[in-house]
């Protein structure tokens, strides 16, 4: 066979292969669409019952539960995905009614069994349903999935634990950020915040005993969650943690929480011997708290040699009430007060401050 002949044969074979692949894909799609149509057709007569169930009127719910619990298996298979989907869309009585039906039909027991499936998709689906149903009894199984081989299963399990709001899950969730098979910090943060106040003791414990990443994430979550129970641990981490990253996040968290008694620690964190990233964040956090006790130190910092420290301190003075604004005007009038002048000009533009001693910007008042 010539070279050209071999090439032609190869091209024909390739074209045949591509055609076969396209046909298989089309057949699979058609099969799936047909299945979906059949399921929708089977579910259609039951939809009014399903909607009555979720609408949650006391007079309708028992009858709807009974009707759905008594469906034949083919119709139930068509309705079950809708009910599982509704778990994430409704709350209150409507959610409780859906859980009751899924419980009666054995869907939740099957979801629990699926967490041990060999298929990652099935494990993730099981975790998703259990979390959406708020299934406390599934916490142990979901904690097991936090160390699953599959990253998506771990993420779904973390979200499910957050939805269940089990306080027992808070510490393992925080550990999962740096485990051998980690879960992304933003997913952990979201899950722990869903748990709420019940997670605060775990945040404190992690701030004290976790590894570097765990401590940093615990500090961040404590700030976002406004965890006042963590203020002492955050103040301790702010000044004594061996890692700058943890100290920086602790400073930011203390600002967000806003407890005035953290002011002294934050002032200490702005000291000239402290790491620059910490001084920058602490000077801003002092403004978040807004205590007049911070005014003398912020006045010094507003003329700091590093522009970001000075800029943050000047902006913070604006948030410390009349004493802060008066001090800022004093800094603005002195040599080296350009950041203070800028802060006053910006405040005037935003309509926060209309004092007369600040320099005009472009002639406008």
């Amino acid at each position, binding site marked *: 066979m010539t070279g050209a002949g071999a090439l032609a044969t190869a091209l024909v074979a390739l074209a045949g292969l591509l055609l076969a692949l396209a046909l298989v894909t089309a057949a699979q799609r058609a099969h799936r669409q047909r299945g979906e149509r059949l399921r929708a057709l089977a579910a259609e007569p039951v939809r009014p019952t399903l909607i009555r169930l979720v609408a949650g009127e006391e007079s309708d719910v028992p009858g709807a539960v009974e009707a759905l619990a008594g469906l034949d298996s083919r119709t139930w298979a068509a309705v079950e995905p809708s009910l599982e*989907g509704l778990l994430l869309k409704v709350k209150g009585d409507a959610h409780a009614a859906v859980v009751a039906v899924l419980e009666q039909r054995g869907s939740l027991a099957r979801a629990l069994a699926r967490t041990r499936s060999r298929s990652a998709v099935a494990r993730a689906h099981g975790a998703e349903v259990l979390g959406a149903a708020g299934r406390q009894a599934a916490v142990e199984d979901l904690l097991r999935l936090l160390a699953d081989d599959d990253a998506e299963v771990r993420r779904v399990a973390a979200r499910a634990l957050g939805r269940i709001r089990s306080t027992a899950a808070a510490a393992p969730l925080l550990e999962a950020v740096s485990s051998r098979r980690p879960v992304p910090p933003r997913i952990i943060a979201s899950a722990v915040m869903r748990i709420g106040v019940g997670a605060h003791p775990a945040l404190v414990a992690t701030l004290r005993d976790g590894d570097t990443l765990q401590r940093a994430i615990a500090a961040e979550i404590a700030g976002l969650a406004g965890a006042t129970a963590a203020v002492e641990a955050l103040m301790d981490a702010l000044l004594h943690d061996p890692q700058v990253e943890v100290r920086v996040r602790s400073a930011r968290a203390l600002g967000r929480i806003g407890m005035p008694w953290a002011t002294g620690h934050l002032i200490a964190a702005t000291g000239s011997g402290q790491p620059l990233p910490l001084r920058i964040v602490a000077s801003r956090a002092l403004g978040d708290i807004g205590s007049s006790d911070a005014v003398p130190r912020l006045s010094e910092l507003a003329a700091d040699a590093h522009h970001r420290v000075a800029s943050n301190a000047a902006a913070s003075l604006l948030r410390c009430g009349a004493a802060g604004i008066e001090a800022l005007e004093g800094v603005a009038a002195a040599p080296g007060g350009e950041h203070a002048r800028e802060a006053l000009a910006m405040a005037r533009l935003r309509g926060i401050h209309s004092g007369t001693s600040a320099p005009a910007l472009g002639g406008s008042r």
Partner: protein
Amino acid sequence: MSNGRLLVADDDRDIRDLVAFKLGQAGYEVQAVEDGVAALDAARENVPALVVLDVMMPGLSGVDVTRELRADPRTASVPIILLTARAQEADVENGFATGADDYVVKPFSPRELVSRVQAVLARRGQ
């Protein structure tokens, strides 16, 4: 002019049917549509007393529809409630900035949604 009819737009059939059923049960006449374009057409054809819009819809989002309705003198004063899974503060602010009257976050309680609708209509004196 308002005719006492409520308009519901959500691309999720379960939610659309649920909201329509619940509002119907509360005594309102409800028209339910499945996307933003249909919502806009329906509102312009027959101005509703109130609109419930899902934020995340294909084509025109609930926020886009709100903006369009507010820009049209005939529909500018129609009360609007946004329904969304997005609970971020920025999204809530964005919804209000475009002129929505209230904001309900999924998962939601159908009963609470009806209360919100009643409250918004009462505020508008309808």
